């Protein structure tokens, strides 16, 4: 029972990060109707920036801020410099460009930083806190859980309570109508990319130090899990990203805990296939449309 409680708690913390990263995929999907397969590689560039700046300044927090800013800058550069020129009449073109971008970015990271694992520091202890003899989350897990939930709450407020959020949502759902109403849609798409990659960078910087280890392929697994979360929750749904993150995080942790780490990806894959078979558009992707 103690083990189950520990695994569930850890699963929630991991799930929060998966949800955060999945949310970043949802943001881009909504803004540009692209499944950005380069999201992991772009977030990884930002993580390396965080690593480098933290090393230079000796401050985790300055490194974190630098990583998030680098993520936003990556979003800006990729949208303005690459994706804007991808043909929009074929949905595959954006995907192919993104895959090409993964190869370029990972190669560049390998050239500049090498293929070896780099140790990244964390600001809190990562040993589980023991409550009445039951090991629960570590202080770092708690930090991750709290900030991930805070970022998601902040994004929710941004989208539902601000003029910028209203324009972002409108541009995503109805770009032509938004343009007619005076919304600068191309600017909204750029902001969407910046926001999305900044969030992805944040998620990667939180997860890489304890779970993945920093190397040019660190975020491959994170992207895989977050993509599963986005598909499970519904690529259009922010609530789906949150719930999907918890489902995948807990599934992965339980499978790892009881069956071993090597079986975890299979568990997640089974979940993905099950959702795709039963509800291909995702659990939370639904909309009732009145016909007349």
């Amino acid at each position, binding site marked *: 029972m103690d083990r189950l409680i520990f695994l569930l708690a850890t699963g929630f913390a991991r799930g929060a990060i998966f949800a955060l990263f999945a949310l970043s995929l949802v943001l881009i999907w909504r803004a540009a109707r692209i499944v950005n397969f380069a999201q992991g590689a772009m977030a990884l560039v930002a993580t390396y920036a965080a690593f480098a700046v933290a090393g230079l300044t000796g401050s985790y927090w300055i490194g974190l801020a630098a990583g998030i800013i680098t993520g936003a800058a990556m979003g800006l550069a990729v949208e303005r410099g690459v994706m804007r020129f991808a043909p929009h009449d074929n949905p595959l073109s954006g995907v192919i460009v993104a895959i090409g971008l993964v190869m370029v970015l990972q190669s560049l990271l390998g050239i500049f930083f090498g293929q070896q694992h780099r140790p990244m520091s964390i600001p809190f202890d990562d040993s589980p806190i023991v409550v009445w003899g039951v090991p629960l989350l570590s202080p770092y897990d708690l930090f991750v859980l709290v900030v991930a939930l805070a970022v998601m709450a902040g994004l929710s407020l941004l989208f539902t309570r601000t*003029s910028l959020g*209203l*324009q972002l*949502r*409108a541009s995503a*759902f*109805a770009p*032509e*109508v*938004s*343009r*007619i*109403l*005076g*919304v*600068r*849609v191309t600017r909204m798409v750029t902001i969407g990319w910046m926001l999305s990659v900044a969030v992805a960078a944040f998620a990667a910087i939180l997860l890489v130090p304890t779970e993945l280890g920093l190397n040019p392929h660190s975020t491959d697994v994170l992207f895989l899990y977050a993509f599963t979360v986005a598909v499970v929750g519904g690529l259009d749904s922010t609530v789906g990203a949150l719930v999907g993150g918890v489902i995948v995080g807990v599934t992965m942790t339980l499978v790892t805990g009881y069956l071993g780490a090597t079986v975890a990806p299979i568990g997640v894959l089974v979940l993905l296939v099950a959702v795709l078979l039963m509800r291909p558009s995702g659990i939370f992707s639904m*909309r*009732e*449309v*009145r016909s*007349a």
Partner: protein
Amino acid sequence: MSGVVSVGFRGGALDIRDLTVGYGGEPVLHSVSFDLRPGEIVALLGANGAGKTTLLRAVARLVRVASGTIALDGADLGQVRTEDLARRGVALVPDGRSVVGELTVDENLRLAALWRHRGAARERAVNGIYEIFGSLARRRSSAGHQLSGGERQMLALGRALITEPTVLALDEPSLGLAPLIVAQVMGTLRETAASRGLTVLLAEQNVTSALSIADRGVVLNLGRVVADASAATLANDTHLRHAYLGF
């Protein structure tokens, strides 16, 4: 008629000259020319495929113009982007009751009001639309896709009006609506245009409804203007009605 009753607003003058527009090199509009005087309601009539929607999309800069000009109050709109057109006073209500289905009624209106009104003025503008369209006020928290066809059309119209346009272009506002709702939408359009001195370009297949509120009608056939006359003249021209308008 409507141009005479202007209260605090002034309609814009729209001049469309030798407009040629096409898709993939195939022209849909052939050297189309006509104008709208300030405060005038002009019905743009014609069968399916006549080029009505293309003309409205050209006015909104949503399709590339091959040649010709569109001018608002004498200023060429050739280099104006779609998103800046609303700021110039041109509002388009596209067909298909193009409300943003994922946003609520209130959010749809606020979105349209964003750049025109700030703070308390925005609230007043939104409430002003609710006064015109009472049924929308009762559904302000409903998502756009939950509205009935008539409500969606009212929201699309209200959203355009909140930008305080000088020229309002509507594409088939009666499409798919029950006759009673069509009469209601047309009546509201007529009253609003009259009270604001608004210039209206109304593309319609429902000829009777359109001519009932229009000052003038322009008939398109296969992308060419075949008639430009007063609404009364068009309504009484049996040959034209049979040949191009199907009734």
